[in-house]
């Protein structure tokens, strides 16, 4: 019962985003032991930002990008042309499935994608547009 009450208290503080000692102290009932109340508040305040970050990290989400690697190859030959020199890009994305579903054992999968120069140019155009939109929002 004690653990459950503590759990509810901390969850409530994290949920409401309380950051001031007065706000937390006001949650306790009137006749609560003074020193214990202060001690608990102090401990909660110390941990609050770590708990909030963790809550945000384990939020439900689409699969998240964890890492990214790339490599440029030059294709020199194929069954349709015996001699050529065509550069191509291999992009590997490490993607973590929904953190909320995986609990403590996140499932990370690696996806390797090939991009031609044309595809890359188009993608960069798109990414540039995203960057412009982000700047516009930031400057508002």
């Amino acid at each position: 019962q004690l653990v459950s009450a503590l759990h509810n208290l901390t969850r409530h503080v994290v949920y409401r985003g309380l950051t001031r000692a007065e706000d937390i102290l006001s949650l306790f009932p009137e006749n609560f032991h003074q020193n214990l109340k202060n001690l608990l508040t102090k401990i909660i305040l110390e941990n609050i930002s770590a708990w909030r970050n963790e809550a945000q990290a384990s939020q439900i989400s689409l699969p998240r990008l964890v890492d990214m690697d790339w490599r440029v190859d030059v294709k020199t030959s194929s069954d349709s042309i015996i001699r050529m020199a065509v550069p191509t890009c291999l992009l590997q994305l490490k993607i973590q499935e929904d953190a909320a579903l995986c609990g403590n054992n996140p499932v990370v999968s690696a996806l390797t994608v090939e991009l031609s120069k044309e595809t890359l140019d188009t993608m960069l155009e798109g990414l540039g547009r995203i960057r412009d939109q982000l700047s516009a929002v930031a400057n508002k």
Partner: protein
Amino acid sequence: SQQFSALTEVLFRFLTEPKEVERFLTQLSDFATMNKISLGPLKNIVKSILLVPNGALKRNLSSEQVRADFIALGLSEEKASYFAEQWKVNSPTLTRLAVGQTLMINQLIDMEWKFGVTAGSSELEKVGSIFLQLKLVIKKGSQLENVYVELTLPQFYSFLHEMERVKASLESFS
């Protein structure tokens, strides 16, 4: 020789648009009727003629080599030169088509995005964090697959930076 140039035109139109098989066959049969040749033998001749440009493409032959090949096969100099000329004109398109057919693994076809703000969740009443969601359309074999992935803003800027480095690398090899 006007016949020959008309036939050459039909052939190259097919070579540059290999998916238009119906149109090619219709044009061949029109040609046969107009010139009072029977379609069967015409088809056989066309099949043999087509072997030359296809082989030339595979082996990156120059137009002089194509011309020499045709003369060796018994075509008149005039017709061989004409064909070689057409070959020269069309070879950039044909080469691009052949390169396009080269094997690609999990080719990225398209990319869509949206970004938004997480306003709240069951754990946190007010959040206010921006995220970017990408949808990548990938060709796996003959099927298209959608991959959804979420990026934080720092990840996005890092991704953009890396892709610019890739572009510089690809350009240095072109």
